[in-house]
C-alpha cells in the first residue's frame, strides 16, 4: 500500500477563498486579493495546485449514445401520456379514495351537531307566514268564543240530561 501523503495546509483564513478562486467564482477584488496572497505564500500555492490535480479527477461523466437519448425521449412521452390520462381519472377516483369517506361523514356529523345546538333541538325553520295564516290568526278570538259557546251548550245539555235522569229516578214507574 502506498504511503500516506502529507497534507499541505493552506492559511486557514484563505482556504475558502482559494476554493472559490479555483472555481473562478469570486469577485474581481477577491481574486486580486487571493493572487496577492499567493505571491508571498508557498503553502497556499501548493494547496491550490493540489486542488487543480484532485478536483477534476472527481468528475465522473457519462456520455450515453444517441440511441439512449432517443429511448429517453420516447419513454418520457409515454410517461407523460400516462400522467395526463391519470389527471382526469385521478380527480374522479380521488372522490372514492378512503380518505373522503370519513371526511364527509365527519362533516355531516358536525353539521347535525351545530344545527341541533343552535335550534335547541327544533328542526322547524322560521319562515314568513302566509297572509291567509295571518288573517286566521287575527280571527283566533272569534274561533275561541265559538269554542266557548259550544262548550257551554254541551255543558247545558249534559246538565239537562242529568236533571231528567234524577226526575225519572224520584218518580219510579
Amino acid at each position, binding site marked *: 500500500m502506498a504511503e500516506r501523503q502529507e497534507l499541505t495546509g493552506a492559511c486557514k483564513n484563505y*482556504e475558502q477563498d482559494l476554493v472559490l478562486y479555483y472555481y473562478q*467564482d469570486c469577485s474581481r477584488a477577491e481574486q486580486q486579493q487571493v493572487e496577492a496572497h499567493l505571491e508571498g505564500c508557498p503553502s497556499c500555492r501548493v494547496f491550490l495546485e493540489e486542488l487543480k490535480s484532485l478536483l477534476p479527477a472527481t468528475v465522473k*461523466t*457519462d456520455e450515453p449514445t444517441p440511441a439512449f*437519448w432517443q*429511448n429517453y*425521449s420516447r*419513454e*418520457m412521452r409515454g410517461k*407523460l401520456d400516462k400522467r395526463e390520462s391519470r389527471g382526469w381519472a385521478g380527480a374522479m377516483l380521488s372522490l372514492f379514495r378512503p380518505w373522503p369517506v370519513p371526511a364527509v361523514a365527519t362533516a355531516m356529523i358536525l353539521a347535525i351537531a351545530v344545527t341541533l345546538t343552535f335550534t335547541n333541538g327544533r328542526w322547524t325553520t322560521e319562515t314568513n307566514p302566509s297572509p291567509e295564516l295571518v288573517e286566521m290568526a287575527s280571527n283566533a278570538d272569534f274561533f275561541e268564543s265559538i269554542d266557548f259557546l259550544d262548550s257551554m251548550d254541551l255543558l247545558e245539555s249534559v246538565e239537562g240530561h242529568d236533571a231528567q235522569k234524577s226526575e225519572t229516578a224520584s218518580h219510579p214507574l
Partner: protein
Amino acid sequence: MISRRPEEFGDEELVTSAQQGERQAFEVLVERYKQRAYHIAFGFTRDREDAKDLSQEAFLHAFSHLKKFDRRSGFYTWFYRILVNLCLDFRRRKGRVSWESLDEKTEKGNGLEKIPNPGPSPDQAAMSGEISTRISAALATLPPKQRAVFLLKNNQGLSIGEIAAIMKTAEGTIKAHLHRAVMALRERLTELA
C-alpha cells in the same frame, strides 16, 4: 408573418404554453434540459438506469405541478430544485447501498443491458477502476447537502448564486458547504492514496 418553431421559444414562453395545456411545449423543455438533468442525477447515483429514472421522475413532477410554478425563479432553477430534492431523497432511500457496489453495477454492465453500446467516457477510460471507486467512496462520505453543492459546482459548473437559488439557501452557506466538501474530499483521498 414568420412563425417560430417551438424549439426557438424561451423557457418563459414554453412554460406559459405548457401551463395552458400544450403538451408539446413541455416536451420542448424536456428536450432542452434532459441531458443536464441526467448528468446531475448521474452525479448522485453513478448508475445509468437510476439517473434516467430520477431525471424522468423530476420532469413528471414538474409537469404535474407546473400550474403551481409562480415564476419567482427561472424554470431551470425550479426544475433543478425538484431534481436535487429527488436526488437527496434517493440517497436517503439508498443510504445503505455502498457506493462501491453502485460503481461495480455501472462498470460491470449490470443495469446497462437495455442500453446499446454505452461506451466508456474519456475520464473513465483514463482513470483506473480502483481510483474511480475510491473517489466514489470519498464522495459517499460527504453529508447530502455538501455532496449536492459539490456536484452542482464541480460537475455542473453552476455558480454559487445559482446553487443558492436551487437549494433555497444563503450564498454564504453554500460557500461553506463547498469549502467543507472540498476539504473533506482532499483529506479522504489523501488517506486512500
